[in-house]
């Protein structure tokens, strides 16, 4: 009895989510969009299958700033509200990764530390590999490479490569725990 009704509502939800994500260049199967999701900029935004964008807490911002910038979210990526991804070159998030609330991911510092503050420093591509968990309010600066399965504690500031399976936390980031080998 309820099955056709349910499948119809699921279809409609899917269509609605796709309409919300209409500015993405690629959308995988069964996206979930809740709350506000902002997709800005001239660049490419590509989403994998079963992506969950939960912008109920605060808007999620996917900002591919320049025409050749690229944001890729892999399959099963979950993003919480307030997360902001700003790509000038490229940000790649691997399958199964989770980005916490209000985390900031940027591949360019936008201003140099010294000298003329209005010229842009070069971008460094940013990579988040499969199964990574990023805590809320974490800040991932240019040069970050989070390798498979590592996790980032809330509020951490990172700008370098973090090896697979490691938990890091603090500002600047320190290794809190290494995964037991095997």
């Amino acid at each position: 009895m309820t099955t056709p009704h349910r499948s119809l509502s699921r279809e409609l939800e899917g269509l609605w989510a796709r309409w919300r994500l209409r500015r993405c260049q690629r959308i995988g199967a069964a996206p979930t969009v809740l709350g506000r999701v902002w997709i800005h900029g001239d660049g490419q935004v590509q989403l994998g299958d079963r992506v969950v964008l939960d912008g109920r807490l605060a808007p999620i911002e996917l900002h591919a700033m320049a025409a050749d910038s690229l944001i890729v979210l892999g399959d099963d990526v979950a993003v919480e509200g307030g997360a902001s991804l700003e790509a000038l070159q490229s940000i790649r998030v691997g399958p199964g990764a989770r980005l916490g609330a209000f985390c900031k991911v940027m591949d360019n510092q936008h201003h140099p530390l010294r000298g003329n503050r209005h010229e842009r420093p070069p971008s460094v591509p940013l990579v988040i590999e499969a199964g990574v968990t990023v805590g809320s309010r974490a800040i991932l600066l240019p040069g970050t490479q989070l390798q498979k399965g590592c996790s980032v504690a809330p509020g951490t500031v990172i700008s370098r490569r973090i090896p697979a399976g490691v938990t890091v936390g603090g500002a600047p980031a320190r290794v809190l725990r290494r995964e037991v080998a095997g």
Partner: protein
Amino acid sequence: MSIRDRIRTFIVDTFFVDEFGDDDSFLRKGLIDSTGMMELVAFLEQEFGMKLEDKELVPENLDSLSRVTAFVERKQQQRLSQAG
């Protein structure tokens, strides 16, 4: 392990850079960025049990492997002479 080797091992393990000489500037060769420099300072404090003053965080002390090594040795000697 000598002081130099301990510092070098830390830099290689943490920043995944391998090819650098003792006198190469970390900044100019792009080996360590500002966040990494903070991590290096934290490592020095923990590993060698010393306290770095903010005014000591200058390129003359920290910008290359040889400078860091010399700086750590100098600090340790200072502490010895103060203690003895």
